[in-house]
């Protein structure tokens, strides 16, 4: 039917919405970050960078992403492969593995707090086996390393599911014949995985990595729940500048930094895992 206007009419509401609530606020954020009283300036970035917590927050955020994302990738791939090898109970296993998908980062932080807090389950267990005499403090202000470890565990626990879902869906799109062909030509299971599955999975790997990396850079509530202000990250500093220090320009500058790093990582992942058009199935 020759309705040329219809698709535009159908898209219009979402375009308007994204314009007002996505493009426009980002323009505003950029403007707030780069101006003072209407004149362009980098002063807010200087304020941000000269604050003693900026370096720590940046390092912590990048370090967390660098530790968490690769572990999640490995774990998600392992889960996906295990699940595809199962004959019985496959749906059950998938459901269990994807449960954390519905759990917010705040709830995940609280869940791991129940384990790591002073009177928590970790200490209870250590006590039961006689490894400690009394409750040990794991998340105190001097325990940066254990806070970091707890955050890594909570993040890996919570957000591996999203990668798993993307990878399992991606594996479902790979026709079985490829693997069977590789098997007929004498490839071992490991070779089939590295030479057939992984290369064909590249588009899904790309999506999963981009999504996860960006979310890892936005880490916030888990850190707040487990470390309070003891482990500053970029997102929590943004929050602090917006509310406690009441300087939305510096908060906006933080937002630009997070945005910049996100875009940089997205471009890197796109480049590294580039799939040439001709090689797509």
């Amino acid at each position: 039917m020759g309705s040329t206007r219809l698709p535009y009419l159908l898209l219009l509401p979402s375009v308007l919405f994204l314009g007002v609530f996505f493009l426009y606020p980002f323009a505003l954020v950029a403007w707030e970050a780069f101006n003072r009283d209407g004149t362009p300036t980098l002063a807010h970035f200087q304020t941000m960078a000269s604050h003693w917590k900026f370096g720590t927050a940046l390092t912590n955020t990048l370090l967390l992403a660098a530790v968490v994302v690769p572990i999640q990738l490995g774990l998600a791939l392992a889960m996906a492969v295990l699940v595809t090898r199962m004959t019985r109970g496959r749906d059950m296993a998938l459901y269990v593995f994807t449960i954390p998908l519905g759990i917010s980062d705040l709830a995940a932080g609280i869940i791991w707090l129940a384990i790591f807090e002073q009177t928590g389950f970790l200490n209870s267990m250590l006590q039961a086996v006689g490894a400690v005499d009394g409750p040990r403090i794991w998340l105190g202000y001097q325990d940066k390393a254990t806070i970091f470890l707890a955050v890594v565990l909570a993040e890996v626990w919570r957000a591996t599911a999203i990668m798993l879902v993307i990878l399992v869906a991606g594996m479902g799109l790979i026709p079985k014949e490829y693997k069977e062909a590789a098997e007929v030509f004498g490839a071992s299971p490991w070779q089939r995985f590295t030479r057939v599955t992984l290369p064909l999975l590249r588009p899904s790997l790309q999506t999963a990595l981009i999504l996860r990396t960006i979310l890892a850079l936005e880490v916030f509530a888990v850190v707040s729940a487990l470390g309070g202000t003891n482990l500053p990250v970029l997102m929590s500093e943004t929050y602090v500048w917006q509310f406690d220090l009441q300087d939305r320009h510096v908060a906006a500058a933080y937002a630009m930094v997070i945005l910049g790093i996100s875009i940089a990582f997205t471009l890197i992942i796109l480049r590294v895992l580039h799939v040439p058009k001709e090689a797509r199935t």
Partner: protein
Amino acid sequence: MTREPAHRRRARQLTMALVILLGAWVLVPIYLLVVNSLSSPAEVNGFPKSFVPSFDTGSLGFFLGFAGVTRALLNSVLVAALTMVLSIGLGAPAGYALSRFEFPGKSSYRLLVLMTRAFPLPLLALPLAVLFIRTGLDDSILGLALVHTSLALPFAILITYSLFSGIPLELEEAAWTLGCTRLQAFRKVILPLVLPGITASAIFAFVISWNEVFAASVLTIQNRTLTAFLLQSLDVSPMPLKFAGGFVLVLPALIFIFAVRRYLFAMWGIANR
């Protein structure tokens, strides 16, 4: 019956063992939260802890009776419901258009939608906080729902796009040749077929809003959602309150994920492309 070769059996047992191990990795922390929530406040603060709950509703009662909690719960539900309606209402027509038409500008539109993924969306809340004060949307259910919609909308568009794409155009064309207008064909043929999937993506939008912390904390002061309430009282609130709150936060998510599990993989498979 032929006997399974020994190496096959060992491989299968190893697979099962690993799956159970990973399942435990996922389930045990949730179980521990449940233990805490179903214990009395004294037990939660006590040491060492028991690994089985005493099924005492003290903590949950304390949490639900705490000032502002019922209000926060209600706010969370309202914001999430509004987000659900807005993102499906705006996203489904776009998903339909993408699945059924070829038109100039289609790739730019898809780029816009995909672009939202590369941005840390909760940060939108910062400039919008100022904007909302000017327009009177500050500290309101609607204001927060709008921000959550910008979070959920790209997913709604991509998921409904995949749902509509899964319905052969032929069915719609058949309805046209049998006397339907475009709208009638949509109502009588397409809608009944996509409804379960649309429900799943609506639930997905609900969960996205229900779980969101940053924007909710930035944009609400009096009208806090549950996440904002819990975050802001993290430093001050007693342990039983935190754990019971965490439990209430997790519970609907578990149910929702169970409800949409059939669609999870199909949705993501196509949202990938």
